[in-house]
């Protein structure tokens, strides 16, 4: 197998809580292993507070991990100084959720997209301008956008600029943090199509963070589901959506309504009680046991389940109740 583009192992990120607010630590990411192979789009799904954005920010080192390692093309970058990271920054770029706040309002589009090129000293003058114009065209923006400012653009156009800026250096890994969730439904489709087209053309790998399952199912080859800082299930798109094993994944899939009234009425719904517990003081044992409709006490409360590949085919889940042959617990 070829070397993974991104290899995360045992990653932890804790945030201290000020003593005035009770002290302790937020266990945002608490022991995550994940790899992204060349040319693969991996979806990272979870609800708010699951740690998915924190994980993405650790990968691009916008946040300093507390423990664990992050390898890019085999090189350990977990604690590299920002200066020594600079060369590697060519390989990894990020697209953010909010296309309004992630572009400098006082900078012209051409300069926003050419900044990475200039920073890395790859091209100057006319060559740089050509590169930028070519990239803008690839994301579906006309060349006259170069002199415009972000406020003159619609949300969808801004997200295209964000993609152009991230991809102009032809990185090997794109980290996308909910890039369409702030956009209108009819605009989302065009951005998702664009990501897919660009990925097919340019062949980059992508870590795609999302809370919307249908988006992930549309776009990703492989999917990891996070709950309270840990991956609870991971597999190919077909494995995860076709035969979810973890009770949380089952609940998540059943909670997302289908835009098909007769089918939606017929669907079996799993209603989870309560809210996501606080990551400051996460539940013992299986973190999902407090909301799990099928939890068996004391087992699920006392023992932490491992992320197990029951059927030896890369479909991993962490639940005590999955049988050794991979049969998932029936959740209703």
């Amino acid at each position: 197998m070829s070397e993974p583009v991104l290899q995360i192992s045992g990653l932890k990120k804790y945030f201290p809580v000020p003593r005035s607010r009770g002290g302790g630590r937020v266990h945002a990411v608490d022991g995550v292993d994940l790899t992204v192979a060349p040319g693969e789009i991996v979806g990272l799904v979870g609800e708010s507070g699951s740690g998915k954005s924190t994980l993405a920010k650790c990968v691009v080192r916008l946040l300093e991990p507390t423990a664990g390692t992050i390898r890019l093309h085999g090189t350990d970058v977990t604690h590299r100084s920002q200066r020594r990271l600079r060369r590697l920054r060519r390989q990894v770029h990020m697209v953010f959720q909010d296309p309004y706040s992630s572009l400098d309002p006082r900078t012209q589009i051409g300069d926003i997209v050419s900044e990475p090129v200039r920073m890395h000293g790859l091209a100057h003058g006319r060559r740089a301008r050509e590169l930028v114009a070519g990239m803008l065209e690839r994301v579906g923006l006309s060349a006259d956008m170069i002199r415009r400012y972000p406020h003159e653009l619609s949300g969808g156009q801004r997200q295209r600029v964000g993609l152009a800026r991230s991809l102009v250096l032809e990185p090997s890994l794109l980290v996308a943090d909910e890039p369409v969730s702030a956009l209108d439904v009819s605009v989302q489709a065009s951005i998702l199509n664009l990501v897919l087209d660009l990925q097919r053309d340019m062949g980059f790998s992508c870590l795609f963070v999302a809370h919307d399952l249908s988006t992930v199912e549309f776009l990703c080859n492989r999917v990891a589901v996070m709950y309270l800082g840990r991956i609870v299930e991971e597999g190919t798109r077909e494995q995860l959506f076709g035969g979810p094993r973890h009770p949380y994944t089952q609940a998540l899939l059943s909670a997302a309504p289908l835009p098909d009234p007769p089918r939606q009425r017929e669907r079996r719904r799993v209603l989870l009680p309560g809210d996501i517990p606080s990551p400051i003081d996460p539940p013992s044992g299986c973190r999902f046991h407090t909301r799990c409709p099928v939890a068996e006490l004391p087992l699920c409360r006392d023992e932490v389940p491992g992320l197990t590949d029951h059927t030896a085919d890369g479909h991993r889940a962490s639940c005590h109740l999955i049988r050794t042959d991979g049969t998932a617990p029936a959740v209703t």
Partner: protein
Amino acid sequence: MTARLEVTGLRVRFDTDEGSVLAANGVSFSLRPGGVLGLVGESGCGKSVTAMAVLGLLPPTATSEGSVRLDGEEIAGLPPRRMRRIRGREISMIFQEPMTSLNPAFTVGYQIAEVLRRHEGLTRDQARVRAAELLDLVRIPEPGKRVGEFPHQLSGGMRQRVMIAMAVACNPKVLLADEPTTALDVTIQAQVLDIMRDLRAQLGTSIVLITHDLGVVADIADDVVVMYAGHVVESGAVDTVFAGPRHPYTIGLLGSVPRPDLGLDDGRGRLREIPGFVPTLREPPGACVFAPRCPRADALCQERMPPLEEQAPGQYAACVHPGGHAHE
């Protein structure tokens, strides 16, 4: 049977420095007693403004015309004093962002009780007891303890349930819910939708659900009204409209949602796109508002905005080239 809520020819105009904006332009719909109506559209289509106009809560910069009838009685243009008696008692509203709609300085129990004291004339103690009952109705655990808590002590889903409790405190005939689950996670959204289903079954509340999420409409609504740029472009029973949308915008909207379960794509694994973006609502154009983004637009579409016409029994669309299929 009279409609519980009947809106006819609603127009809302905002006067801005850059000219006037028609946020709602001839909006009509009717809500059946005990029914759930989904009002669907993207940002800026006028769906929230429509709700505000129904409640008489438009800002002073807005002027509105048209008729709003509650059980056959005209309520548009009522003097503020009479409107205050209707708002919260006959028609109430829940908003998208529960944190900014609750007062951070008062306990949630106090805020629910305020509605009851104002409209039902309950005493402080009676209202507090009733507030706890309402929290129980929206399935908040330990309601007796929660009434004494402040909004910041509750999670997002819990706050939205407090908003619902407050909205149904006086057992209103109509509940206007403006994107009630948009700020919530899917598992919490499922809980809130379930509570709304319950309210309708137990209290017979009629609901107007404003949303951009077609899945939510499919989940809970009986009828759907699709809005685009201030106009109603299609309406009908959810089953009919979702199975056979007639307006190109509805068709595009349904086609742009990833549906891997149906293998719906153009053969290359891509989604259907609606080109362009939502227009601004300056002066009313002399053409169909969707024409600039419409694959079917021709000279006929440039002449005027087509009126809503019945396409099939109970299904209306405002289009000169209606028909086709979502998955064409």
